[in-house]
């Protein structure tokens, strides 16, 4: 039986995109490469949430993945197998409050200015996002 912590190729991943930072253009239906730009806290990779499923009932649903401090977020939807096919490394990184948390380990704050990192961000935004959902308002708004 497969290790439940392993990320299956058929698993759906969510990446949160703050609306205020224009990470998604709904008119052109375009995700911006900056949506995958690592921030200072991304030392080991950028965050994604593994989607709630029958196999993983404790993981977040899309509306839950879209919660945060800012007023609204879009969710970019990706498929784990697509990322692996293009050479991306996915690492489970469960947190106490978010057991489905995972990392795209190729993209770190330290390597964000390297050509390969820039290329991978373009590849993700322009080629690997299946769809974008939202915007979702955060619960406090």
């Amino acid at each position, binding site marked *: 039986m497969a290790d439940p912590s392993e990320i299956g190729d058929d698993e759906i991943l969510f990446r949160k995109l703050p609306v205020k930072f*224009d990470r998604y253009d709904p008119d052109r239906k*375009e995700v911006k490469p*900056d949506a995958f730009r690592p921030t200072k*806290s991304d030392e080991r990779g950028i965050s994604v949430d593994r989607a709630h499923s029958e196999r993983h009932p404790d993981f977040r649903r899309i509306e839950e993945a879209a919660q945060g*401090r800012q007023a609204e977020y879009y969710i970019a939807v990706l498929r784990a197998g697509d990322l692996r096919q293009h050479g991306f490394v996915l690492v489970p990184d469960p947190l106490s409050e978010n057991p489905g948390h995972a990392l795209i380990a190729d993209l770190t704050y330290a390597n964000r200015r390297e050509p390969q990192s820039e290329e991978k961000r373009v590849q993700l935004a322009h080629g690997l996002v299946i769809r974008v959902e939202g915007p979702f308002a955060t619960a406090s708004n």
Partner: protein
Amino acid sequence: MPTCELDITVRESANNAQFARVVAEGEDVLATEIGLKESVAARWDEIIDHKLIEWGSWRRSTMLQQDFEADGLIGPTSQAICKACQLVNRMRMDGWDLPTGIIPDGEGGIAFENRHGSLYQRIEIQANGEMFLVTFRDAKLLDRSQIDVE
């Protein structure tokens, strides 16, 4: 077939680099080629009023800053906004068409982007006001050159 590849050239000078618009086989730089319903001038106003001025106002809201910080994001700096205004004025004066996107980079800078099929170009204004023209084709980085507004 017309192409817009390499339609910005970089001229090195003693103190800085300047960018110059050239027309490559009949297509404009950073151009959205499909007709815009509103006038280009009005859209440039919209960029200045609704984006650059709004981004400038973010710095006055402590609550917004805290919300951004929670996501590890930094709004555009005053240097970046000032440089973006210069760039917008230059593009407008020279009759450039609108870029396909103008977005905060999350590290205090601003990116002007243009995407035509497999060609993707960005003018990246960094938090300190430095500017770079970055060109990708099929997600491969072709070139990164420092540029400036004359």
